[in-house]
């Protein structure tokens, strides 16, 4: 059964960012190719002359995909909270992807500020999607602050390194079996996305991997397919991995062509 994000089911486990595409047309075609369940969007200063934001908003409305505004670039609780308020008014949604950045080289979240901002925004009626790490104690604090979704990083934003801490992500999934979890950041290729879903994550959030591909539209389609494959694989209950080989072709009834090998197999030490 698909996870509910604050009571809402998504049409796809792919959340797609809208930044860094070569052109608005390529962004539109990429969205049509990937069929994401959510589009992430942001806010920037608008110049009255250019009105770039108005054109972008028209495009997003035309695409008809639910939006998740972010607080990207915010480094303090106050900045993030004010940005969330502005986003709620502009985009008409109480969903907010909460980013409070703590470190510039890794764009690692400031988890202390994140928890504080999450608490403030939850009390004000926001539905917070916190960009966090795989730290379980921080995750507990975010849930206590009112978050009903967690979005741990796979790797630093824009790095394309995939799932950097498989152990940590697995532990998080096991520790919070019923909390919707999204791998946000660091996914570089479709196999990373499929892997996250196979681990039991409920969605993946991708931007740079599509926008900065040589052919963003083809890559968007590849991610759409990978997410479908990963979701289906998870539902199909993957086999357990094991250390030793197990023959997939039945041995019983095999013709005895070399008695030395046959004797080994039959004695169970082949």
């Amino acid at each position, binding site marked *: 059964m698909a996870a509910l994000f604050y009571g809402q089911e998504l049409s796809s486990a792919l959340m797609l960012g809208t930044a860094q595409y070569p052109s608005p047309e390529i*962004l539109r075609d990429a969205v049509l190719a990937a069929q994401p369940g959510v589009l992430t969007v942001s806010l920037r200063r608008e110049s009255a002359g250019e009105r770039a934001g108005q054109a972008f908003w028209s495009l997003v409305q035309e695409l008809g995909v639910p939006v998740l505004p972010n607080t990207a670039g915010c480094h303090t609780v106050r900045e993030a909270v004010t940005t969330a*308020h502005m986003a709620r008014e502009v985009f008409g949604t109480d969903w907010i992807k909460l980013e409070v950045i703590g470190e510039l080289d890794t764009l690692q979240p400031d988890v202390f500020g994140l928890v504080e901002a999450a608490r403030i925004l939850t009390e004000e009626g926001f539905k917070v999607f916190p960009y966090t790490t795989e730290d379980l104690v921080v995750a507990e604090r975010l849930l206590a602050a009112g978050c009903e979704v967690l979005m741990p990083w796979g790797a630093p934003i824009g790095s394309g390194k995939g799932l950097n801490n498989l152990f940590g992500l697995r532990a998080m999934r096991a520790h919070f079996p019923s909390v919707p979890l999204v791998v946000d950041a660091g996914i570089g290729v479709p196999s990373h996305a499929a892997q996250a879903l196979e681990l039991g994550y409920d969605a993946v959030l991708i931007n740079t991997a599509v926008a900065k591909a040589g052919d963003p539209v083809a890559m968007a389609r590849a991610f759409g397919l990978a997410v479908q494959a990963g979701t289906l694989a998870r539902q199909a209950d993957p086999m357990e991995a094991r250390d030793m080989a197990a023959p997939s072709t039945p041995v019983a009834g095999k013709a005895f062509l070399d008695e030395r090998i046959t004797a080994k197999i039959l004695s169970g030490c082949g």
Partner: protein
Amino acid sequence: MKITVNDEAQEVSATTLAGLIDELGYAGARIATALDGHFVPKTERLQATLAAGARVEIVAPMQGG
């Protein structure tokens, strides 16, 4: 009166945030505003008075990840 809008110094005649939005040509645009670092909802722009040196932020939808 001198204020800053999105970090740029401007000489304006409007005395409220609502007046400023009209004066700068944002009427009808999908924007959000903040005055001196605090969010001002659309419904409160008429009451938000500008003082000399006020810092106004005007933001709009933009691509994001």
